[in-house]
């Protein structure tokens, strides 16, 4: 789901960088001292999760967890994802430095949007509504990231629909898996640490 170096034109890279910077500043400004450890933990989880490959059929897919990061961190998902992607680019040549802003937006923006869309469900005290909200957030964040990748590739000159089709079809299993994982983690947190579900960094 990352875009590599050398694919996108400078205008898209600059726009992505600007949006990522804005999101990161908002995230950092809204972050209280008490929330910093949580952001650190989620950054580490995101950094690790993208490197875990699950073999499915002849290929393999990796977890993204951006939906979960969005639910637990709100706006702080921007700085968290930015740092994790920077380290992935430096250590694993995953994405790249010049494309870091665009990749941050691709991962963080859908996570934030789906968090806000599902917030009434996630804040609900009813278990199944919370479950539906977390599944949609997990599923939708990956779906949104796939669409954004296709949009970026389309802006870079590729035709949108073939690229979007290939990317989205390839990520259908991970969307479902992400939805289920997000659902289980949020349901678990609801039982053991319900205050974690309301990030209050929103």
């Amino acid at each position: 789901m990352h875009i590599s170096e050398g694919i996108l034109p400078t205008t898209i890279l600059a726009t992505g960088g600007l949006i990522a910077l804005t999101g990161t500043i908002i995230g950092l400004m809204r972050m209280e001292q008490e929330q910093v450890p949580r952001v650190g933990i989620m950054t580490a989880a995101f950094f690790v999760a993208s490197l875990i490959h699950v073999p499915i059929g002849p290929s393999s897919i990796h977890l993204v967890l951006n939906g979960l990061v969005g639910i637990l961190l709100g706006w702080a998902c921007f700085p968290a994802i930015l740092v994790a992607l920077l380290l992935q680019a430096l250590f694993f040549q995953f994405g790249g430095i010049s494309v870091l802003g665009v990749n941050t937006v691709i991962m963080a923006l859908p996570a934030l949007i789906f968090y806000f869309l599902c917030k009434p469900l996630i804040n609900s005290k009813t278990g199944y509504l919370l479950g539906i909200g977390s599944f949609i957030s997990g599923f939708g964040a990956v779906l949104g990231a796939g669409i954004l990748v296709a949009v970026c590739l389309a802006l870079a000159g590729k035709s949108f629909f073939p690229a979007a089709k290939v990317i989205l079809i390839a990520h259908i299993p991970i969307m479902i898996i992400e939805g289920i994982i997000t659902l289980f983690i949020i349901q678990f947190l609801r039982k053991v640490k319900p205050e974690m579900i309301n990030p209050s960094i929103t």
Partner: protein
Amino acid sequence: MYQFYKINHLAMMAMLAILFIFPSLLLAHGTQGTIKINQGLLIRAKYSTGEPMAYANIKIFHNQDKIPFQQGNLDKNGLFLFHPDQKGIWMAKINDGMGHALSLETKVSNPRKLTQKTPSQGNTNISKIWKLLMGISIIFGLSGIFFWWKGTSKKDQ
């Protein structure tokens, strides 16, 4: 403060659980490749999962030429062979159309012989697990610094 230690503990347990469930699956999904002499220049491109970049588009450029010397697709195994016709820097740009790209280059001093050693994109010898631990350490380090900074700015207020 105790509450945060508990949160940390919980999240760390979850993360470690993921690591233990998938111990052998800690692989990046970047791209990597090599150029070797083999009756010409043989390009091998793969994702860092080890899967070949099968059928990815490839363009070969000589020095700063804008028109590619050759273009086409890698084979099923992520291989591509071509014969440079002059000395200079030869660059291969590989793109799978799904956001993964790779750029490799090598210097050719005598295209007829192609006997010189060609550099390939090097990977550091640090294992993935070590890189992973380094990454996590940096994240916690940064969090600690930010936590301290937020604390001091709170005190100042």
